[in-house]
């Protein structure tokens, strides 16, 4: 039901499309010699685009690759799902003939799943155990044997302890239990204790890591914060990633890490692994990647889609690409970005937006993130189409908020370019963000608010004057000095209300973000007159 509900009260027929199966094909390239030999019989030459070349005249010097397809099918009659991996090069799905990937080969793939399991595990298959085995398997076995012997001796001592033996004897004597169990009477000397089933493997399974981080002494890892676990897991993964060509998979990476640790560990993982597949909601983690390495997964109007940037060689586009890390990454988990001309605009809209709750919903509730087209010198209306292009390529819904410049052919062209690059464009009345802040505010309030700016070491720009010329002067000073938030603070103090034009802009952004794009992209806002001063 893509449009989300019925219209005009009519029932909407639900349309469900069933697929026989879902398949995901991957091509493994840059194969380690070990892997290449495991895939003997299934290798294909790699073409320059990074795909398997199925032509019969492939480049004889092309490196080898292998394709694997994951197939998930559902038998509705039997209510059974089946999932397996096969080699497409030796399979014919149309004939239901599959050459399946053997489990042993799958296990040999150097794939490290950086999951939420506990790090520092000695059990078979645990990351620490794998690292230990790689460093010195013989020494590992010797250490485990020593541990097992020591535990055996300690447990034997426990069993022989008079308090323990006496208690066990009492149990055995109760109701003649000891005489009924074996061929001969069972005594306390016949009873010992094992960790689980007594094997070394079981013993190692039971051991859990403990850390001493401070004066609290050693505590089980699970008693420490989630960041500790996440950092250690990442460290283990990095060591395992030393396998040439290792692929690391991490889901929701960074959720348990602080921003700095998330960025640092992601960068390390990326640098040390053959390939890193990392899903994250953290912009800090995304920062470790090149822009073209990011794939943004979105759902618009009920449809799932993915977006990835192409490699850019255009010089102007490159300058916009810089905005990715500074502006767009922070918005990566928001469906919509509202792009303003500069950081002062973002400061004003953000401050008002912050003061909405609890009476009103802020932009974040509508999935909108405010970003500037630049950070200062590199911003401005000219930069908006470039950042908007970038944002749309990443799957954002894009709304631009621009100033109204003087009517001219150049301005018309500029607006046309912005309209082409965005889903919606909101144009303020003549004047920049500073005038928009003051629209619909009484002169008395402006005069009073202006007077508070002297706290910042500047003369009062209005200085008691009540004409529009004084307002223009105030706008210039605020713009030049960057005192937008300070003036806003004073205006709030004077009026006790949100600036009406800013409020209108925010309401419009929220409305546009939640409605499908229309043909008419440009919304021109009109100025709001100042209230007439009350006659005393």
């Amino acid at each position: 039901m893509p449009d989300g509900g019925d219209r005009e009260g009519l029932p909407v027929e639900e349309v469900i499309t069933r697929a026989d199966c879902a398949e995901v094909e991957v091509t493994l390239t840059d194969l380690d010699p070990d892997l290449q030999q495991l895939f003997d019989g299934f290798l294909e030459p790699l073409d320059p685009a990074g795909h398997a070349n199925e032509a019969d005249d492939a480049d004889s010097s092309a490196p080898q690759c292998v394709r694997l397809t994951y197939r998930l099918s559902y038998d509705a009659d039997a209510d059974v799902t089946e999932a397996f991996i096969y080699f497409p090069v030796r399979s014919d799905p149309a004939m239901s003939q599959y050459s399946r990937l053997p489990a042993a080969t799958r296990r040999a793939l150097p794939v490290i799943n950086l999951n939420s399991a506990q790090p520092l595990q000695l059990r078979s298959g645990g990351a620490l155990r794998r690292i230990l085995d790689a460093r010195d398997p013989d020494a590992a076995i010797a250490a485990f044997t020593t541990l097992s012997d020591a535990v055996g001796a300690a447990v034997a001592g426990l069993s022989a302890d008079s308090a323990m033996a006496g208690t066990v004897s009492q149990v055995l004597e109760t109701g003649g239990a000891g005489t009924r169990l074996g061929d001969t009477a069972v005594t306390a000397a016949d009873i010992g204790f094992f960790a689980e089933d007594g094997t070394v493997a079981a013993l190692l399974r039971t051991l859990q890591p403990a850390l001493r981080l401070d004066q609290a002494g050693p505590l089980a890892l699970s008693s420490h914060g989630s960041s500790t676990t996440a950092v250690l897991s990442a460290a283990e993964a990095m060591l395992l990633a030393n396998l040439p060509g290792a692929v690391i998979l991490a889901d929701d990476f960074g959720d348990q890490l602080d921003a700095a640790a998330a960025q640092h560990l992601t960068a390390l993982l990326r640098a040390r692994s053959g390939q890193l597949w990392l899903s994250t909601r953290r912009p800090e983690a995304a920062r470790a990647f090149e822009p073209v390495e990011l794939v943004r997964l979105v759902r618009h109007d009920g449809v799932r889609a993915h977006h990835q940037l192409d490699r850019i060689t255009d010089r102007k586009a490159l300058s916009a690409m810089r905005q990715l890390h500074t502006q767009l990454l922070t918005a990566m988990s928001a469906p919509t970005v509202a792009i303003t001309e500069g950081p002062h605009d973002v400061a004003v809209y953000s401050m008002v937006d912050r003061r909405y709750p609890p009476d009103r919903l802020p932009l974040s509730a509508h999935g909108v993130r405010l970003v500037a087209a630049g950070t200062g010198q590199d911003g401005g209306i000219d930069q908006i189409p470039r950042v908007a292009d970038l944002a749309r390529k990443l799957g954002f819904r894009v709304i631009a908020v621009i100033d109204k410049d003087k009517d001219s052919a150049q301005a018309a062209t500029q607006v046309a370019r912005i309209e082409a690059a965005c889903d919606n464009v909101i144009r303020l009345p003549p004047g920049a963000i500073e005038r928009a802040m003051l629209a619909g505010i009484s002169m008395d309030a402006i005069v009073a608010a202006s007077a508070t700016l002297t706290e910042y070491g500047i003369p009062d720009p209005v200085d008691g004057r009540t004409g529009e010329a004084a307002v223009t002067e105030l706008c210039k000073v605020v713009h030049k000095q960057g005192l937008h938030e300070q003036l806003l603070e004073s205006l709030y103090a004077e009026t006790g209300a949100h600036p009406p034009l800013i409020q209108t802009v925010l309401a419009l952004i929220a409305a546009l973000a939640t409605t499908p794009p229309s043909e008419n992209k440009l919304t021109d806002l009109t100025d709001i007159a100042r209230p007439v001063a009350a006659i005393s």
Partner: protein
Amino acid sequence: MTYEPRGTQYDVITSSAPVIVVRGGAGTGKTTTAVAAARAYLEMADRHLLETRRLAAIADQRTRLAAPQRVLFLSFSRTAVTQIIDRAGSIIGPYGPRLEVATFDGFAWRIVTSFGPYHGYPPPLSVLSVANARVPGAPPGLTYDELLPAAMKLLALPRIAEHYNGRYGMIICDEFQDTDVEEWAFLRTIAPSARLILLGDLHQCIYDGFKHVDPNSRISDALALPGAIEIELPPASFRDPTGVLPAAAEAARERRFDDPAIAYAAKAGRLSITRTTSATGYAEVIDLARNARLQGHTVSIFTHTNAATTELSDAMRQAGLNHEQVGLTEAYGEALPAQLALIQYALGDDAAPIRRALAVYITANHRGKYLPALAEQLLSGTNPQLEHALSGLCQDLRAGAGSAPDLADLSGVIAGAYRRVGTFRGQETWTQAAERTRNALRGANLDHGMAGIEAQLLRLRDESLVGGLSPRRHSIQAMNLHQTKGREADTTILLLRPDEWYGYEQDPYPNGSRLLYVVMTRARQRAHLVVPSAAHPLWQPLVDACDSSRTGTRLHPQRTGVAEPEFT
């Protein structure tokens, strides 16, 4: 199997020479020693790899490491080597999966199917058997003669060469003395940096008459390679630890028929002569084979030609003696597409190539330069009786094949089809192939049409033709005596016929006498010769020697006090 190397066997296992020519008589354990050497090599390579990885792990370095090493064991007969590898399972142990056994043709085919589709051999690829090529209307495909050149062409490509060179650290070649020029070149091309272990016995070179091999120069070529060494294995036989039969065989090869070893083998009942009373000798062979099975023996039966083996196989089948006919890979392989054609016709394909496919199968069961008459008649439709039989078969094929065909019935009709239209010759391989066809039909999903069954049966055909697929192994095996090498059984039976031809060689048969040696050294317990009143002069002196040595009762050294000669 417990294996303790001794003498120079130990040298083979521990040597690190890049080329080792291992020479030894039949049953001296060449293959077993080579398997042990393969294991020693893999263990050493693993230790080296482990240490490299360990050092890299400790140093926290990203290192692109070599793959674990593998050993390639090339032979002319997969069945023979597999038989030995099975018994040597305890020797190779956990390294079994990394010891790859293949025939020359099979390995070449593997290279072609793996890499050919991208470098000049577009699919569908198929092997064209001699019989298939001989019958008019042959489809495109690679003949046996084209397999090795095609594989070598691919191995000349850098990435493919790199792949195999990185895969194999050691290549073992069985029956090295029998490799021809092309096989020798192929052997050196697969992985030029791999160590070579070349197993040979000049006394067992029995193909020089029709394969144009020169065993002496081949071994000289190998020994001329840098670092090559030669190791001679001690003569004692693992197959027959008493040494009785090997000693008799050695004497027979040198045509010293008055040698005490032959006399002793005959007196002790280890080497026996049975005169044929029937025209064919089949009854005697069947009787001997049954008696051997009653004693729990495995049995190998040898004849002079494939045609003779096929006829004997048919007789054994009629007599209800379960067995396997070894070496007719072409007949077995071509039975599969013939049966496929019958299925296609049964399921409504009027264009199914029944006539040609059956003609190919019939041709595969015959030797000679020309098409067998029956194959000609099948193609031309000129034999009224054959046409009648074919018509009846076609009716039966279609009878049960409605919208929901009864696949069990169809399998039955196909299994009996050849009997109805062919000569009796070749029924055994047809029956063996019918088992595969039945399995393919069982697992088939006909909702997807015939393509699945077709692909499966044609793949099996290709694998069979290049020796990559063997039918189920039986306790009784029948084969052409040129296929005996590398095989062993508790009891062997050689059936000789009066009209056999062994080439133009004259007495003292310097090459032909190797056949006597090879055949006599296959048996662990007893070697029987079933002979006509007058055997070929190659064999007759041996028959005479046995006859004259034999007494009315068997001679038991322990009971008679006759001391057993020292043969080992």
